[in-house]
């Protein structure tokens, strides 16, 4: 039978994690429990659901710290996140539907870091930093360096994800987000895009552009970011579209085609840099 542990605090969780590398760590379970009745049970489970040390949203001077245990319902409803980190709130609203949003957590999404993880392009565009911890101590990793491949990350075997620290874009930065799924809700993404664009009037000073479901992991598109710098909105859209063309290699799968993904990714990116 599976051994069950619900840590009282982070410290107990970290010790358990250090001792039992083969135990499954879970929070809401929306990924790990899929078809669980037909798969072998893990030897042990560390249940982080509602662990108080991971369930917080702290609005700080220039950033917002979101605990790994925060659910998408909480993200979507949080007034500061809605106001300051719009792409993340919008992404939260389109993760699965009500039931999944109530259980799915930020920590789960970044822990799995699936290429179709709905919050991930937003975290990239907002230049979030992850805080992870082990009994060895805490460290921070920029999210753009987090993923190492298809559903693999820099999380060490003894570490837990603590929080995402998300810088609040300043007043000259406009943000965008769009998910294109297989249907209008409760869907897996075919293409996702997020952007944070810093403007001087209508000239792009700098930009962060991220795409999901386009590569084996969520990615920043630096070719686009470079191409739009110094361009006026509108013209920048064309430049972004052109720059994106050579920068991505999407694939065909059961949900969509490479051609479609490429074309829609271009449209989304161009739209982010359009005038209105």
């Amino acid at each position, binding site marked *: *039978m*599976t*051994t*069950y542990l*619900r840590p009282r605090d982070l410290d107990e969780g970290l010790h358990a994690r250090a001792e039992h590398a083969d135990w499954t760590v*879970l929070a*809401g*379970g*929306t990924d790990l*429990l*899929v*078809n*669980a*009745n*037909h798969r072998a*049970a*893990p030897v042990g*489970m560390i*249940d982080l*659901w509602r662990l108080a040390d991971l369930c917080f949203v702290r609005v700080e001077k220039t950033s917002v710290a979101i605990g790994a245990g925060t659910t998408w*319902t909480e993200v979507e409803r949080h007034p500061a996140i809605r106001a300051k980190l719009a792409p993340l709130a919008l992404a939260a609203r389109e993760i*699965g*539907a*009500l*039931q*999944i949003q*109530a*259980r799915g957590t930020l920590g789960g999404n970044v822990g799995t870091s699936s290429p179709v993880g709905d919050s991930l392009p937003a975290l990239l565009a907002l230049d979030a930093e992850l805080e992870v911890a082990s009994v060895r101590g805490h460290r921070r990793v920029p999210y753009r360096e987090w993923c190492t491949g298809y559903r693999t990350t820099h999380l060490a075997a003894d570490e837990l994800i603590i929080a995402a620290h998300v810088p609040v874009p300043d007043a000259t930065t406009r943000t965008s987000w769009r998910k294109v799924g297989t249907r*209008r*809700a*409760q869907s897996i993404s075919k293409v996702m895009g997020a952007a944070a664009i810093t403007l001087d009037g209508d000239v792009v000073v700098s930009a962060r552009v991220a795409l999901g479901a386009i590569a084996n992991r969520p990615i920043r598109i630096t070719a686009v970011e470079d191409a739009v710098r110094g361009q006026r909105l509108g013209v920048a859209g064309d430049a972004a579209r052109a720059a994106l063309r050579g920068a991505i290699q999407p694939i065909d799968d059961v949900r969509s085609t490479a051609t479609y993904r490429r074309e829609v990714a271009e449209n989304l990116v161009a739209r982010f840099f359009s005038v209105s």
Partner: protein
Amino acid sequence: MNVTLELNGETREVEVTPWKRLLDVLREDLRLTGTKEGCGEGECGACTVILDGEAVNSCLVAIGQCHGRQLTTVEGLAHGEVLHAVQRALVACGGAQCGICTPGIAMCASHVVDRGLLAGADDVTARAKVRELLAGNICRCTGYQLIVDAIIVAAREVTR
């Protein structure tokens, strides 16, 4: 593992492996078969229950996680033979056809109505909100129209 939870207002204990899905514990160990399985992957919402005040898919919750928590299933939605406003409206409006998705829809809709998630919205907005909030519950029979009608009726009744 011994799991104690508050189920439909009563304290219940079960001896189960903690990885077992809440859905299976409800149906097999507790013989509460009102909660249905439609897919086992969190897509259809037929297994929706209210756990600690939130509508969740019971196929995606491990029973170990439910120790000490509050759970309402469709068996606890009506008070005896007195139906919840949502259940009443579903019957009156013809919102249940084959009925296999109905318990899940009743649970999700009762959450939406009881939490006042439609409060203050005009009819058009409320209908759009219902469509977004219920998107995790698939019904293949109705085309959703009569279910949306029912939830709007129930929301109005509860607000009054």
